[in-house]
């Protein structure tokens, strides 16, 4: 029989027993309990228990992966809050954004955070891809994770673009109109081949995307569903795979002689396994390659708690501070209410799509579908064609990579600037030969010529050096250079009617 006294004792013990049942291990003060903390926790266990010191070098990763994730987390939080007030209907959407911006307490801040978060995420994902490429971290075991990363890149752009329509202002309306017509642009090809009557993939894509023939209520509802439900779900799913794969592929890429390069451990950082000798931590999964525990001592690994978590937390806080500062300094723009009869002039998409818009201004099909598909296909193929053994996990480490990168950057910049200058000054095929066949006008445009030049350059580097990796470096650098210049031209130098102007104050003002 339990007496009243023992009942009181039990009640007193509830807090400590509850904590014990919650965590199931002591405070994370020894290597053993720290490992347990990571291993037994659903949210932490996606991390390794111990992490190699090479992976913690901030100059290797620049924290870009964590920064992408951090922005996604903040975007999810602010997005859910914005959904409380946003009304996805053509009549109410614009006013509800205005309410959020001007009336809802802290609404403007939420909207700004969401907007800057989206920009930060796109930048972080883009730079993350570049860092993985230039540190040759996509090879052997990590090939498939590169493909997953590519999916995440596309999903990030889709998320940001679907969000673009929701305010239902002039920019939103005309950006989506242009986008929907890019989706329809295969019709240019089918028209030229006279088969649109019975085979019209372009028209089908457009109507499915918009839920109608024009951007209207149905388009807004579809984009809202994609932006708030489907795409976030899908991207979370792929993010899970991406993180899981990093662990299963043996952590972040590092050179084989990483341990020698790091040198001896500083005093006091020797891993201490003495506190709990009854049980050493074992290999918790089958890991391929030279993981910390295959054939090597764990000298150069440190417990994820606290070293990795400090690093991640630091990047998270930096990302948050960046967004915070931008949100307090600059408001997200809102143009006039969407007017289906009068386009914005110039109608510009968000900056990361403006490179594409510049290409599209030369040809809808090649610029909007042809060239992007070629670029994505190239990115997908890189790890399956470049199987050379070059040092991984170090910037520009392979033989000749630095000089090929510099040369390709110069070549890429020069050719894109020359082609654009030429087109702006002298026009293109149709200006010289008005009767030119449709098919030629579509296929031969400045964008596709530029792509071809870049491909030839890459092939030339490949044949000169005999190295697939250097060929890949050449074309990747060229595409980055092209993207940069096209974006700058479209952001800065394109005015009304997409004409070239040196400065926005030279735009005709009527």
């Amino acid at each position, binding site marked *: 029989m339990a007496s009243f006294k023992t009942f009181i004792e039990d009640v007193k013990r509830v807090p400590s027993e509850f904590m014990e049942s919650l965590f199931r291990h002591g405070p994370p003060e020894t290597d053993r309990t720290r490992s347990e903390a990571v291993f037994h926790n659903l949210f932490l266990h996606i991390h390794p228990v111990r992490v190699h010191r090479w992976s913690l070098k901030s100059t290797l990763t620049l924290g870009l992966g964590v920064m992408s994730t951090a922005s996604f987390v903040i975007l999810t939080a602010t997005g859910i809050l914005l959904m409380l007030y946003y009304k996805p209907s053509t009549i109410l959407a614009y006013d509800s954004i205005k309410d959020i911006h001007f009336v809802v307490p802290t609404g403007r801040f939420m909207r700004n955070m969401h907007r800057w978060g989206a920009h930060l995420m796109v930048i972080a994902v883009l730079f993350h891809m570049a860092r993985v490429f230039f540190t040759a971290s996509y090879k052997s075991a990590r090939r498939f994770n590169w493909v997953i990363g590519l999916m995440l890149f596309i999903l990030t752009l889709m998320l940001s673009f679907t969000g673009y329509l929701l305010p239902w202002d002039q920019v939103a309306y*005309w950006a989506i*109109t*242009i986008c*929907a*017509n*890019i989706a329809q*642009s295969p019709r*240019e090809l089918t*028209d*030229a081949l006279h088969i649109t009557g019975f085979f019209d993939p372009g028209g*089908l894509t457009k*109507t*499915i995307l*918009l*839920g*109608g*023939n*024009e951007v*209207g*209520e*149905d388009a807004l509802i579809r984009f809202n569903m994609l932006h708030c439900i489907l795409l976030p779900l899908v991207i979370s799913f792929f993010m899970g795979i991406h993180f899981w794969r990093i662990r299963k592929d043996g952590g972040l890429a590092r050179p084989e002689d990483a341990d020698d390069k790091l040198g001896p451990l500083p005093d006091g950082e020797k891993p201490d396994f003495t506190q709990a000798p009854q049980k050493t931590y074992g290999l918790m999964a089958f890991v391929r390659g030279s993981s910390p525990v295959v054939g090597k001592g764990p000298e150069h690994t440190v417990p994820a708690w606290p070293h990795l978590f400090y690093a991640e937390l630091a990047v998270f806080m930096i990302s948050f501070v960046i967004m915070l500062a931008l949100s307090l300094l600059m408001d997200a723009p809102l143009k006039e209410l969407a007017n*289906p*009869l*009068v*386009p*914005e*002039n*110039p*109608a510009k998409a968000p900056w990361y799509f403006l490179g594409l*818009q510049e290409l*599209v*201004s*030369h*040809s*809808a099909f090649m*610029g909007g579908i042809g060239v992007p598909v070629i670029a994505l296909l190239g990115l997908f193929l890189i790890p399956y064609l470049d199987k050379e053994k070059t040092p991984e996990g170090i910037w520009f480490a392979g033989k000749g990579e630095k000089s090929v990168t510099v040369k390709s950057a110069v070549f890429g910049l020069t050719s894109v600037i020359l082609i654009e200058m030429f087109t702006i000054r002298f*026009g293109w095929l*149709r*200006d010289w030969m*008005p009767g030119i066949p*449709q098919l030629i*006008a*579509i296929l031969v*445009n400045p964008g596709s010529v530029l792509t071809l030049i870049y491909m030839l350059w890459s092939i030339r580097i490949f044949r000169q050096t005999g190295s697939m990796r250097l060929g890949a470096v050449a074309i990747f650098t060229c595409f980055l250079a092209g993207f940069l210049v096209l974006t700058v031209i479209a952001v800065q130098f394109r005015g*009304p*009617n*997409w*004409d070239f102007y040196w400065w926005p104050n030279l735009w005709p003002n009527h």
Partner: protein
Amino acid sequence: MSEMLTKPVKRRDFLGIVTIGTFAVAMAAALAGILRFFRPTVFSELSKKYKIGKPGGFPLGEVRVPPGRSVYVFHDESGFYAISSRCTHLGCIVKRGHDEFLCPCHGSRFKLNGDVISGAATRALDWYDVSMAPDGQLVVDEGKKVKKGTVFFA
């Protein structure tokens, strides 16, 4: 792999494969049908056919844009005709200059009869059918494209 193909299938495996296979085929067929779900069939859009008034109130030489529409209706010596102002490049609305249409989005230029002058557009502007309703009003039908130069004479 070759062993898998040459070895006789066990009775139990065969039944399993047949069960799963039948189910998969049935599901695939059903799902293929359901794909139609995504294709819109209800269009909550303005009617494509509308009246623009009687010819009498539409003097020679006037160019009219029916309110809320992206169409230019011309009246010249040959008669009435309607040209779409939706750019064939990426769907922006072209503006009429004194002797050409100009698209603000990517600078495609068209002649006043719709033909492409320059830019990334690959197709001439659409011409729409103009007819007369029984009440004597002119009717433009955006759902009915006609050949360039098709003019309604009232």
